């Protein structure tokens, strides 16, 4: 049986201890990339990046800044009614 061979090597101890540790590292790199792509494929992605809010004061300050930038600036529009009788 293959499981038997693998288990006997993986549990030998001493330098063979590197085997399980290396395996989980490789597995986590491969699976991690897979899972990351899977979630983004399903449309689940991070909402906001670079969240660096630490203190209450900062939060408030940043909130204000956000609001300012989010607020729509009024745009000037020039419009001439061609049917208007002068």
């Amino acid at each position, binding site marked *: *049986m293959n*499981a*038997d*061979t*693998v*288990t*006997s090597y*993986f*549990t*030998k*101890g*001493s330098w*063979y*201890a*590197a*085997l*399980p*540790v290396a*395996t*989980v*590292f490789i*597995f*986590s790199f491969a*699976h*991690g990339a897979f*899972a*990351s792509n*899977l*979630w983004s494929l399903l449309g*689940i*992605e*991070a*909402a*906001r*990046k*670079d*969240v*660096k*809010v*630490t*203190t*209450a004061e*900062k*939060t*408030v300050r940043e909130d204000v800044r956000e609001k300012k930038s989010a607020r729509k600036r009024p745009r000037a529009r020039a419009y001439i009614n061609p049917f208007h009788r002068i």
Partner: protein
Amino acid sequence: MQDLALESLKFIDLNFMSVGFLFIVGFIGGLVSGFIGSGGAFVLTPGMMSLGVPGTVAVASNMCHKFPKAMVGAYKRFKYGQVDLKLGLILAASAGIGVQAGIQIQHFVLGKWGEAGSNLYVSLSFVAILIIVGGYVFYDAWNTARTGGVEKVTKLARKLQSINLPPMIYFKTADLRISLWFTVPVGFATGLLAATIAVGGFIGVPGMIYVLGASSLISSATELVIAFVMGLGGSINWALHGMIDIRLTLIILGGSLLGVQLGAIGTTYVKEHVIKVVMGSIMLLVAVSRGLAIPKYLNQLGLISMNEGSIMLLGKLSFVVMCISLAVGAIIILGSMWKARRPALAMEESYVKA
């Protein structure tokens, strides 16, 4: 021919049911860990033991799955700018000392009062610490939610940050300046708890929040770094003793790597106090679960007398409550993600229409 190695190590045979169970528990555990920094793995050790895995193999395989999971979670949250690597590594170094101290205490208790005494000590510290810390975390989350969801730095943290005791260290991501000497007890306690009850994050994350003054988002992300360093050290140690059942580790890892990324993504959706709500409720439920296990050990020590039937019942109840605690955590996380996602989706749709 029989599997000699599997037989001699008492490694269990795996069937569809046990693989499915481990995968699902791994996924939910990963989800919780990715969200609050740790605390998803505690169901796995008793869970594996209930499948017939010997205690040491269960602990070793669990630890071997914990550190790659923490690594993936930490990497993901590092990309979101939530991890303070310097803080994590400094705390991990002092946690290493804490782990050694915890092991010494365990040996002392084991030598003096035997197996049951050691179990009683573990359960009592579980209950005491989780009720005190978990209760406070929950109370604080409640207060934050009531006052509009803005986190405040505690008085204790502000006081400690103002004490100028060299060497002072500035942590950039966490945006705080504090003396090295105040980070050491937090790391030490994390390690001590990790060696005693296997979940250091239950003290590490609240320690970072309330003692050092980091936000819960940064604390829970930084905890993943600590878990990675401690888990790697522990796993190498277990691997040297040949106690890791790589099959169990990989099955759990398969589920938990999916979960940990979802949990990490979840932190970007929700308000910060939700992390505290999840953590507080899990801690209090786990405290109840361990409290139910205490009569068994008291009985073994001859301090009280109970019949076998009711002790069995309490043991099962304890495991069920533990599973419930994990499930509650997962439900709160997914629920709040769902809630936070709806307005974002609606906004996207309105953009598309416009």
